[in-house]
């Protein structure tokens, strides 16, 4: 059963076609990686699904409902969470506040101006629990704008997963990390996405083959193959278009 289904999605910027008809089904519970050379449109595809961009044509269904061209907050409330390639947090607020804000909607607080946060023990405990999970518990009161890079990436992840969404989309979660940091991040991703559906864009092949159940290869705005990792490795079209390029580089 597909939790997310894209049908012939297209996106133009002016006369430039960035996404040229993508159809893709994401099965509930799978870990799906999207790979492709730079400029293939991976981030754009993420932006289309999460509502940051409107589609030029085509349809996107999430849990049976059309979500294309809906504002991001409506899509987020349906249970689709995402992280960003460039860290995108609330930089003047503390680490704890970042996580707590990310929890508000799913915990039913809405736009409340009558709940005093100091008294919401359950919410505050939950925020601390998330901080524990992402390993930032001792940084709770730290201004988030002053975190180290790997910590920022962990916070970025924490904000994305706090909402308790069923579908989590991670855009290059380990980009720019050292090898050991990346290993830790992968462990973290595995832990926090357990039992959930994950779509991620990543460049590091080791990580992808390690985490993903299925891989889609996006080249110049089109998906040229979607399959299990071992079959993707063996796919001649993929080797030619993408992996070959990496090897020769």
């Amino acid at each position, binding site marked *: 059963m597909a939790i997310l289904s894209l049908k012939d999605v297209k996106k133009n910027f002016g006369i430039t076609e960035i996404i040229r008809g993508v159809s893709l089904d994401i099965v509930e519970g799978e870990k799906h990686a999207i790979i492709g050379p730079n400029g293939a449109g991976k981030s754009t595809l993420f932006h289309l699904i*999460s*509502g*940051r961009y409107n589609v030029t044509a085509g349809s996107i269904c999430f849990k049976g409902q059309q979500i294309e061209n809906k*504002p*991001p*907050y409506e899509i*987020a*409330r349906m249970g689709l*969470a*995402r992280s*960003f390639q460039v860290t*995108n*947090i*609330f*930089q*003047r*607020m503390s680490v704890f*506040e*970042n996580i*707590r*804000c*990310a929890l*508000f*909607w*799913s915990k039913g*607080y*809405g*736009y*409340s*101006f*009558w*709940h*005093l*946060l*100091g008294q919401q023990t359950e919410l505050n405990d939950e925020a601390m629990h998330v901080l524990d999970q992402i390993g930032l518990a001792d940084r709770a009161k730290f201004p988030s704008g002053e975190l180290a890079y790997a910590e920022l990436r962990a916070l970025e992840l924490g*904000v994305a997963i*706090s*909402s308790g969404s069923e579908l989590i989309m991670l855009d290059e979660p380990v980009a720019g990390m050292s090898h050991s940091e990346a290993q830790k991040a992968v462990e973290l991703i595995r832990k926090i996405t357990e039992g959930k559906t994950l779509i991620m864009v990543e460049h590091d092949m080791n990580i992808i083959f390690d985490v993903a159940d299925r891989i889609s290869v996006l080249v110049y705005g089109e998906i040229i193959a979607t399959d299990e990792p071992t079959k993707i490795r063996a796919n001649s079209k993929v080797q030619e278009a993408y992996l070959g390029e990496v090897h020769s580089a």
Partner: protein
Amino acid sequence: MALLKKSSIWIAFLIALLGLPLVFDSILAISILNQMVIAIVFALSYNMLLGQGGMLSFGHAVYFGLGGFLSVHALILIEFETMVFSILWIPLIGGLFGLLAGIFIGSFSTHKAGTVFAMISLGIGELIAASSLIFSSFFGGEAGISGDRTFGPMFFGFDFAQNIEIYYVAAVWAFIATLFMYLFTQTPAGRMANAVRDNPERAEFIGYSSRKVRFISFCASGLFAGIAGGLFALNYEFITEENLNAATSGRVLLMAYIGGLGYFIGPIIGAVVLTLMNSLLSNYSELWMLYLGIMFLLTVMYLPRGFAGFIMMHQIAWIRGNMKLLIKPYIITAIPALLFTLCAIALIEMSHIEDEVFHYLGLELNPASPITWIVILAVAGGAFYAVKRSLVQLNDAWETANAIPKEEEA
């Protein structure tokens, strides 16, 4: 126990509000205190927009002024017994109309923050200020409108004819308004206002419409600005176009900024300092607006987080018990800095004054003589040089006071 600790600062605030007129009991002092509590509510309401919500408004006086006009109209209705209720509730009328104006104007101005919001606020401000001169049956034209607060049912025998009586009314309302504005920052809507200020895009991906978050802050800000307007109406018993025009909007921006936008207490400090400058300095110099402008420039350039930010800068040194390292260098810098400021003021005043003798700090200076100018310039130059020299020391002391102790570093 924790509750007691939390509320102690509020109890202190209330005691200060209620106790100040006992210490400063002259007519002038009561009048200044009245202005001060009104300014505190107004500046705090402005900070809900700019400091907490990231919305730069050039037209916040609109909500203050409309609240004030409606309040004066309510006073008139009470006077002619069309309505019968105690004038104690007038600030609520101001607040209600501030809120209604906020709902109406916020419905289209909170789409975007940044330049778009700032320009709309400027436009609305000009529009309302111009309208207030055109629709004179409601706004009273240039003369404004006036009422009388001594009508209506008495409150335990008080008819509020005295300024001191109205001060206590204003102080209690200011306390309530300040408390509610603080509590607002402790709610999900208040926190999301911070989040949208920092990163409106990401707020949308955690389920919040940035626009609606801004709208809620905007309405709340209008409500409290309206309450401040109602307090103004009670205090002065009249209101004119001046109270909703761009100059008033500019003044509230200055108060909030100079006090420090990032801290809840910032605008309170700003309101107190600016009211004092406004009332006291204007007795001594016609040029006080110029000094205010210079102070604003210096704050923006050297203390971007305002007076409150300057105080909070010392938190680390305070925690480490290193404040004593800073006292001496501060004094060494402050003395020539004060001297330089005094010289600069003398020079500015001398270029403005038309009298033959300029009385300044007990001296009789002759503005017509070049010697006076040369001497003051020389002293100013020397003082400036001394400040520059002493800054090196101050900087070193600052580094030492804030240095991370060796064992912590490891």
